[in-house]
Every structure is written in C-alpha cells, then in structure tokens.
C-alpha cells in the first residue's frame, strides 16, 4: 500500500501506527511534529493514530533558520 510521506509516495506492507512508522524511520518522536491527513497529532496520540492506504503524513522538525 502507498501513502504520501513528506510529499512523496512511500510504500508500506500494511497499516501501522504513527509511533511504529517513526520507529521504522529511526526518527525520535520527541523531536518532531506530525500531521496526519492535515490534522496535527498530539505526541501522546502517536501510538493510536493508524496510517492507512492513501493517507498523507507530514513529519517536521526544527532546522536552522533566521
């Protein structure tokens, strides 16, 4: 199944939680914010939010800027 992850197609074998997706990507959940189908997720909800086929996920973090 495909989702859109940070603007690009991303393949997953089956639905999984946002928490599991972050773990698979080796992303520290404490350092990011996540948007699931345009809704910003609270960090406590990462374990319950399930990513399904066709979903759009945005994972952002802080980078250098002025």
């Amino acid at each position, binding site marked *: 199944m495909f989702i859109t992850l940070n603007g690009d197609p*991303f393949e997953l074998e089956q639905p999984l939680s946002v928490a599991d997706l972050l773990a698979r990507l*080796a992303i520290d959940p404490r*350092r990011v914010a996540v948007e699931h189908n345009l809704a*910003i997720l*609270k960090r406590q909800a990462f374990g319950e939010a399930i990513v399904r086929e066709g979903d759009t996920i945005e994972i*952002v973090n*802080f980078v*250098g*800027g*002025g």
Partner: protein
Amino acid sequence: MVDTAFVIAGRTFRSRLIVGTGKYSSHAVMAQAHAAAGADMVTVAVRRVNISDRSRESLLDYIDTSTIFILPNTAGCYTADEAVRTARLGREAGLSNWVKLEVIGDERTLFPDNEALLEATRTLVREGFVVLPYTNDDPIACRKLEDAGAAAVMPLGAPIGSGLGIQNVNNIRIIREFARVPVIVDAGVGTASDAALAMELGADGVLMNTAIAGAQEPIAMAEAMKHAVIAGRLAFLAGRIPRKSYATASSPVEGVVGR
C-alpha cells in the same frame, strides 16, 4: 546605570540580542557563535524531516535548551494559512507556544505581507500563541499588530540578509515611541554599528542571523554584536547630546597664552 529588564510576554531574557540558527558552516560553529553572542533566545525554522538522508546531525543537539529559549519561525510561508499551519506544527514539536510569525509577500525582497500577517496574528493569538511578528518599518502596521495581541513587534531594518542596516532610522524611532510592547529590530543588520544604532533608537532588542553566520569570522562577529547591543542600549539610557550644525568648544576660550 541600571536597565529595566527585557521582558516579552512575562518572560525575562538576559540578552537583548536574539540570534538565528541558519546559514552556519556547521552546527558546531553555530553553537560557538551563540555562546560568543551571549544569546539566550535563538530562532529555528520548521521543515520536513529528510526521510532519505538521516545522516545529518540534529540541530537540537547543539543548543542547550535549558539555557537557550527556542523560537520557531514561519519562514517560507506566503499565506496566513501556511503560517498558521507551520506555527501549530512548531508548537507541537514541543518546546513552547511562542512563534516568530512571518508571512512573506515577495520572494525577492522577503518583505512581509502585512495584511496576511495581521490575519495570522489574530488567529494565533486566539489559539494562545505568543506571537512575535516580523513586519516592516511602518508604525501603523506595528500598531495594528500590537492591537491584535502581538507580544512584541519586529520591524525590519532592511531586507533579510541584505546587510544594509537600518534603512529608515526615523520610522524605527517612531515605532518605539508609539509601541507599548517590546520592539525588536529584525532583519537587515550588517555589522556592529547597525545593531548599536538600532538600540540607540530605543529598540528593546535586535534579531539577526546572516550578519553573524555570513561574516568571515562568525564567532568574532557574534562577540562584536554582543558588545554593540550592550553599548547601544547603554548609550540610549545615558541620553545622548543634541546634534548641532556648528561647533561648541570643549576647552576654555580664555587664558590662551599669547592672546
């Protein structure tokens, strides 16, 4: 001479110099520059995690968040909706509900779209954010932002990264005279004298990124800026002499030998 505290939204900052985290040659140089500048607030941008390239070090590893306050910006946003979305994401990334709000009106000048900025300010203030809007040197725009609930106003000195210094000295002075919230000159500072001038005009603080990160020796420039902001503030508090067209001698005119 004792200064009043630099307080924004009830939070006191020791340093009136706010520094960015962008454009440094490395995170390590950035950290040294922050230390040399004596900054206790730095700005950061909110961007997508690079999924494919995970090798880049995390910015936050180089900022001690127990001593330095992080201010997320909404750089790169051209509409109120984009800026509000970015601000919300920045808040959810977990450090605070503060935001340096930018809504850009034009790609070449990076001048703010004040109309959209005002709309985004109203929305974010309603949602409980502490909003520090990057705006232009228009006292009326600043007044509207303050009335909309901005915690400070941040008029530009000149275009971002231009190094042109304070382009409209009189307007910055007027903005400080009218404003009842802190005024932070943000953008366009090129060298130490620009920062000192901003403070001499009465600004409560100065925010800069390129002036330090783009200098040939960023750490030395960071230290220069620290002194410049302190010197400018002290000069402002000390009350300068008036400007005159003609001379008034400093040494006595009587008693000159041979006269």
